[in-house]
């Protein structure tokens, strides 16, 4: 036996257990996320080679990556589009887990997942600021202004994350350190805990299957094994890789204008923050901040929802609400703050 074959056999032995009958393609979404995270880490490390996190050099160094470094545009393009896809898939995962009511009896893991969600949001925000172009600067400025409206903790957060009121005094370095130093560790540990708990608690069994299997959390075995899922995941990963490559080639992310401190640029919010903007427009920024905070705390309480149809109804309402707010945010994002 060749070593390769040996490895295959080893993997097959490890993954030979059949998956429960209810486990379908939707359960690949979590693995998909894992692959995207790995891709982000790889492309992110590559970008770190040339990036310089100082206000004087950041913009030029990103330009350098785009124009001079071999395949630099591709690496940045992959990182850029990878981030967008990661958020899409993350939302998909969240919605999937919710509507399968897979959070049941997995309160801790649901909470960890929500923290991960928050962490990815922080990743997206800090990452968007790193090119330190007009857009980045004035977005950071706008969020700074919004943070000042946050009751009680706003000022503290500002001191912690922005390093004070001024954007020029090391804010960029902080964003960079959060993006490549703190957040990866934090998320890495949370992901490890998330996976450990999934492994330990097993996959959730929806009620129609409950009791049919040999015990709690067991549904009748399907003909698929975990090895099947691995292969399907590999398929998905390859297609994802090709898709990101395509996006990077066809829609290479460009660099905005260099910073002009005397010419505020209209804030352009990334699509995943549109619902928040929509909420800010609908109510006031102050109330909006409260509502976002409350909504998020509400998500932690979701496992308390015992009645399935109530959970589904509430979820549908929430998705609808977020969609409406997204449209609202999209339509009004260019307007005055």
């Amino acid at each position, binding site marked *: 036996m060749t070593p390769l074959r040996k490895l295959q056999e080893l993997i097959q032995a490890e993954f030979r257990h059949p998956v429960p009958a209810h486990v379908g393609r939707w359960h690949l979404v979590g693995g998909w996320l894992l692959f995207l995270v790995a891709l982000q880490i790889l492309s992110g490390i590559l970008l770190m080679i040339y990036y310089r996190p100082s206000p004087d050099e950041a913009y030029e160094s990103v330009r350098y990556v785009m124009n*001079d470094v071999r395949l630099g545009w591709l690496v940045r393009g992959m990182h850029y589009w990878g981030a967008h896809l990661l958020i899409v898939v993350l939302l998909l995962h969240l919605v999937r887990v919710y509507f399968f009511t897979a959070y049941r009896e997995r309160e801790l893991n649901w909470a960890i997942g929500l923290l991960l969600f928050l962490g990815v949001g922080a990743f997206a925000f800090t990452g968007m600021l790193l090119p330190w172009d007009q857009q980045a600067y004035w977005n950071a400025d706008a969020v700074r202004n919004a943070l000042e409206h946050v009751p009680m903790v706003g000022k503290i957060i500002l001191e912690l994350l922005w390093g004070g009121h001024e954007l020029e005094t090391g804010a960029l370095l902080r964003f960079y350190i959060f993006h490549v130093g703190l957040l990866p560790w934090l998320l890495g540990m949370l992901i490890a805990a998330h996976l450990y708990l999934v492994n330990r608690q097993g996959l959730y069994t929806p009620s129609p299957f409950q009791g049919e299997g040999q015990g709690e959390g067991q549904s009748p075995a399907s*003909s698929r094994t975990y090895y099947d899922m691995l292969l399907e995941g*590999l*398929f998905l990963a*390859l*297609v994802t890789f*090709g898709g990101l490559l*395509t996006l990077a080639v066809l829609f290479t992310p*460009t660099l905005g204008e260099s910073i002009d401190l005397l010419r505020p640029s209209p804030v352009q919010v990334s699509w995943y923050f549109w619902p928040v903007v929509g909420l800010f427009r609908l109510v006031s920024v102050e109330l909006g901040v409260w509502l976002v905070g409350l909504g998020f705390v509400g998500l932690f309480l979701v496992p308390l929802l015992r009645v399935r149809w109530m959970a589904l109804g509430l979820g549908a309402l929430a998705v609808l609400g977020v969609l409406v707010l997204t449209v609202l945010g999209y339509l009004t994002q260019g307007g005055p703050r």
Partner: protein
Amino acid sequence: MRALVIAGLALFWIGQSNVAQTNNCIVCHSEIRVDYLESAHAPAGVTCVDCHGGDPATLDYRAAHAGSTTPTRAQIPQLCASCHADPVKMKPYGLRTDQYAEYLTSGHGKAFAAGDLNAAICTDCHTSHRVMSRFEPRSSVHPQHLAQTCARCHADSELMKPYGLSTDIVDNFRQGVHGTALQNGNPRAPTCATCHGLHGSTLLQPEDIVTVCGTCHIAERQYFDKSVHRSKTNSAEFQGCAACHGDHRILSAQSSLFESVCTQCHSNGTSAHALGEKLKTLLTEVQRALHEAELVLQQAEGMAFDVSGYRSRLHEAQTHFLQARAAQHVLDEAQLVELTRRAQAIANDIRGEAHSLQTAVQIRWLGLTLVWGYLVLVLIVLSLYRQAYRRERSL
């Protein structure tokens, strides 16, 4: 009591300034006090009595006004000149002394000398009491305010009627490029006096127009002087630069001038008309080429290609183009062909880059296609492998 306070204040003021002698006039003539104290004369020690006579030392009405006068319009130029045309007196202040001499050569001065008391005199522009240096932003003769000061008479149709002068020149000036530049704070933008002269202001003679415009528009003048138009400018029917660009309302030159202006003298079918057409074509074509080159560079930047090397080439092309625009005044086709050719060559180079840009894009596309070809093959193998795996298990 109030008079005492005012007197005290006035004395304090006088003590502050360099006025050596007591000037009690402004104690009573308080309406003039501020104007006078702000003027250039106050710190120089020129006081009321130097023009008006009387006794500044007393507050007694009679004694103060003994021998005082208000200078008449007929007296004022001479009166000002008694100091300002005296080189010895003006030397410490570093001021010129030729203003009066110049004034006498001006349209204003000549009319004045002929006994026309409506003719502008010193105080019409400089004011009587608030005489300020032209560098003072609030001065009536500061470049930003000069047009307004001239307009006080030159926009007055009653006043201008006897002279047959049009009253819309100041408005026209403001609408033109010069007025706009002035308003935008361009420190070298011309005002009325830049072309017509300061104290010797006069109507421009047709033969002088090119020289006057050429003091700033140096290159255009040099080119124009070599052209066949030059010899025509001494006649009234062709007034040099103004023949095509107009006088006070001078607008930024557009290629439409070829149609609207040249054809007024050169009818269709003449060789001059054909030359004009040719020049216009050369210039508009190269302008379009440069614009397209700029677009190519922007497009390349949008696709993350480095074009900084081409930017400096484009500056060079732009230089040739702007030089050609000035050089068209020679009306020499060969010269313009050469200049536009140089600009065009660079523009073509840059537009040629669009092709290598496309090649680079094609390479990216090719790479992408290859990767997808590989991926599809791997995916097929993967699917077959999974199929085999499932069949093996099902057996």
